[in-house]
């Protein structure tokens, strides 16, 4: 008896499939359910000249800081409780991202949908009249062939955001690539996967297929294995972003990240050396030590 193939991989195996110059879509939303273990591996890789397509958070911050990004496609970059992402802000102000495409959020969503549907574009109003079209003169408008009583409306032809690779993080997956989120919001991870030639899913836990619908509704099964090329089990792999209900955002760590990112080169180097220089296991161990340190500080203050 045969079954669907086992797609389990390691973080390093995923990174080994990537090439310089690729367009990589990163799932999640701002500081929420980001595939940070995979992002950290990209940060430490030799890859360069990447085009990133992301609802930006620290993923964008880390990869711009590491000089990996030749082109960035975004609608915002934010850490929520720290509104402005310091590494992204620095990169923009220092002019170290050679090309940026700043879109409206709805345009970003529509661009992913167009790519997922293998269309060259989809029409929408968003962007009309704004500087999004001024700063991106390659984005064209299209005249509606229909007149619904308001004339032939001239709409934005939002270009498809085609991806070479999508990286997303889910709460649970099976070995075949079916995957479920357990938190409040699916974000756009299915669209990222469908917009991409290949999609890699990291997850908190690989379970058997029946486990994916154990005590959770089938409607949360966002990703089907036909959309997925590889599955990586990375517990706490979304840290320091949210992965509700497995864990929430690590605000203390995020503050430390933001302080280092917004601080001097030495501050960043120290943060890099302590947390980012090693592999994922080293990172998680360093985070544990950081947490223990914060706890001890709290105890001492009592």
């Amino acid at each position: 008896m045969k079954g669907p193939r086992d797609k389990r991989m390691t973080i390093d195996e995923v990174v080994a499939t990537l090439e310089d110059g690729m367009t990589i879509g990163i799932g999640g939303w701002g500081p929420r359910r980001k595939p940070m273990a995979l992002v950290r591996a990209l940060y430490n890789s030799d890859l360069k000249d990447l085009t990133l397509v992301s609802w930006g958070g620290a993923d964008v911050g880390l990869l711009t800081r590491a000089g990996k990004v030749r082109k960035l496609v975004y609608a915002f970059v934010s850490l929520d409780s720290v509104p402005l992402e310091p590494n992204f802000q620095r990169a923009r102000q220092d002019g170290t991202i050679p090309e940026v495409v700043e879109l409206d959020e709805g345009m970003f969503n529509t661009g992913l949908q167009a790519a997922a549907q293998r269309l060259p574009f989809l029409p929408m109003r968003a962007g009309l009249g704004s500087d999004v079209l001024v700063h991106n003169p390659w984005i064209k408008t299209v005249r509606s062939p229909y007149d619904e009583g308001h004339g032939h409306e001239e709409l934005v032809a939002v270009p498809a955001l085609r991806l070479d690779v999508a990286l997303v993080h889910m709460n649970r997956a099976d070995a075949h690539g079916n995957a479920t989120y357990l938190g409040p919001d699916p974000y756009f991870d299915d669209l990222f996967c469908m917009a991409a030639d290949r999609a890699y899913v990291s997850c908190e836990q690989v379970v058997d297929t029946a486990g994916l619908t154990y005590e959770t509704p089938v409607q949360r099964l966002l990703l089907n294995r036909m959309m997925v090329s590889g599955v990586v089990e990375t517990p706490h792999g979304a840290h320091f972003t949210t992965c509700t209900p497995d864990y929430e955002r690590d605000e203390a760590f995020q503050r430390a990240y933001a302080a280092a990112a917004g601080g001097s080169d030495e501050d960043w180097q120290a943060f890099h050396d302590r947390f980012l220089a090693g592999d994922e296991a080293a990172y998680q161990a360093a985070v544990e030590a950081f947490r223990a340190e914060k706890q001890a500080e709290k105890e001492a203050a009592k």
Partner: protein
Amino acid sequence: MSTEQTVTRADVCAAAIADAFKDDGEIFASPMGMLPMLGVRLARLTSNPDLVISDGESLFLAGTPPLFTKADKVEGWIPFRRVFDVVAYGKRHVMMGATQVDRFGNQNISAIGDFDRPQRQLLGSRGAPGNTVNNRTSYWVPRHSPRVFVEAVDVVSGVGPTRAAEAGPAAARFNDIHRIVSDLAVLDVNGPGRTLRLLSVHPGVTVDQVLEASGCALHVDGEDVPETRTPTTEELLVIREVLDPKGLRFKEVPVPKESA
């Protein structure tokens, strides 16, 4: 807490924001920031109980909980992707922040300076371009200053009525910049040529103060600018006892020292 408290500026702002939503009927009120959230919830408990509100994450709230508390009762699901559906559907009124607003009601939350090499990178355009050509949009400015109210924004994120008209009927059809509420005044974009107009100044604020705190001209209708209304007793009770008993609103609009 004494019952004889003076009405604070934050309370006035909350009521002014609530007024911006009072005639909206049964639509999704999307406040960005603390005072907008307070004002929307105040409207829902007083002038417009039909408003649909969310927790700012993914849930439509059946109840009207205090600021930053968990929902007790849920009436729907509104993950980010469905927000875009509602934007296009149009039954939404968003109140966004604004790092800059110009005389023509354009808003900037993207970057200060030249876009290609900004002096200061901000959030990015977020949903402002789409909001402003799809659904009613208002702005909240917690610190009215010449750096916020400018002659021309550095980057047009939110589209004002003139820019929308120039972009054509598809952009103008649903463009609806409704109110700009600041810590000093209430404005709209119904001045001559669809420019900023001063609708009211908050109690204790003079028209000259508002004009001085603005880096662009503000149109004034006639001789007198009305005073922004003070909240009713019921509204004050709702603000102080129900929605914001901890006084979180004062972090955004502090009580001036002389009245503290």
